[in-house]
């Protein structure tokens, strides 16, 4: 199970824009059930793909010296799903790359045939030495394989996807509920198994639990929590914002997640996330769900 989500880099302007492609295939590992019970690429994985695309630019621009890691994200807006058969156009824009302060600020957009799936706004990521996380030679080989510049991109029609789920989708399940107060708060615990296959890529020399999967876990747990009181409604995550990651989650860590309902108004539910390991803050964020 690879944890690399850019299939091709078709344009790279050092320190600025990067354009890439991600094909969604039926055997993709990170397909989950959307609100219509269809197979769709997990939205946080689309966000991860945009982050990885920006990361390639930083790695290349810094001549393989640095790579960005998760820091602060102002906002991720989720508009639509990507299904097997779709080709996602990934566009990332570096708003500022500051080698002195070792910081990159980027934004991005993922789309299929001009239809926006997801946008990332103001993602601030600290730059850390690449060789702390990756094997340099492997990164260079991967880049040479991925970077296939082309002047044009033929947009494919979005897949007319109406199949309902027949297979079990990827689900990041909590291990146990520590407390549950309907309409107020849920606290759950999850152990991050050292055997998880994504650790081979994330990262080869320093395995850490991907922020995108942590956020997907938060969204899925929030969905479970909200669904109990809104059984008759369809719930769709539409915005994730104010994401801030303080520390890495390491293989074997027990993550305690607290999800608090902040507000329900106009068919929108706003929840806050707080992830801790050993009572130490790992990540905080806020998400908005549409209830229809």
């Amino acid at each position, binding site marked *: 199970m690879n944890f690399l989500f850019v299939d091709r880099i078709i344009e790279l302007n050092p320190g600025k824009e990067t354009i890439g492609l991600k094909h969604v295939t039926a055997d993709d590992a990170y397909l989950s059930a959307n609100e219509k019970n269809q197979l769709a690429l997990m939205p946080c994985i689309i966000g991860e793909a945009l982050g990885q695309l920006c990361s390639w630019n930083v790695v290349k621009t810094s001549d393989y010296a640095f790579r960005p890691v998760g*820091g*602060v994200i102002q906002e991720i807006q989720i508009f639509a799903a990507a299904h097997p058969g779709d080709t996602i156009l990934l566009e990332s824009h570096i708003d500022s790359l*500051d080698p*002195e*302060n070792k*910081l990159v*600020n980027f934004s991005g957009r993922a789309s299929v045939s001009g239809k926006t799936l997801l946008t990332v706004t*103001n993602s*601030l990521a*600290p730059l850390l030495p690449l060789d702390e996380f990756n094997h340099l030679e492997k990164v260079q080989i991967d880049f040479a394989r991925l970077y296939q510049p082309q002047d044009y991109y033929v947009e494919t029609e979005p897949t007319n996807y109406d199949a309902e789920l027949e297979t079990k989708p990827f689900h990041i399940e909590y291990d146990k509920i520590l407390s549950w107060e309907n309409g107020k708060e849920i606290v759950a615990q999850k152990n991050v198994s050292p055997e998880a296959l994504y650790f081979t890529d994330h990262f080869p020399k320093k395995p850490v639990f991907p922020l995108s999967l942590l956020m997907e876990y938060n969204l899925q747990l929030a969905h479970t929590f909200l669904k109990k009181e809104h059984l008759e409604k369809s719930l769709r995550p539409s915005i994730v914002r*104010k994401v*801030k*990651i*303080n520390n890495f989650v390491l293989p074997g860590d027990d993550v305690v997640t607290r999800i608090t309902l902040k507000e329900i108004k106009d068919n929108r539910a706003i929840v806050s996330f707080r992830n801790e390991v050993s009572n130490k*803050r790992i990540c*905080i964020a806020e998400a908005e769900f549409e209830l229809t």
Partner: protein
Amino acid sequence: MDVQTVYPRVSKIITDVLAVDENKIALNKRLITDLGAESIDFLDFIFQLEREFGIKTPIRQIEKDARGTLSDAEFEKGGVVTEAGMNQLKSYLSEVPAECFKPNLKVNEIPTLFTVETFCKLVVNALQKKNEGVTA
């Protein structure tokens, strides 16, 4: 613009970034020791200040400014702030109580001294520089 003028907006940002009650924030509160800020919070905080006030405030600017005219060798030795460096720091961070400047302070411990007022001053200085740039 002075510290009192920018304080309400800076305070609002700190409340938001650190998710603490506004009534816990005061000019003399230290961000790390009193309000529980971590390094990533500084990143977030600086970014929000830049957006709110339309200024550029590189995250290391406070440390750079605090060194004044001292060279690196004059300011620190083996990662520890020298006596001359300490005097310079005390002068620059005049809002920080004297008892907070511990002997053998390490350079990477300087952010533990920063108070809410430190950041208000940073904003005031950046706004001043910005205005000077416009009128120049």
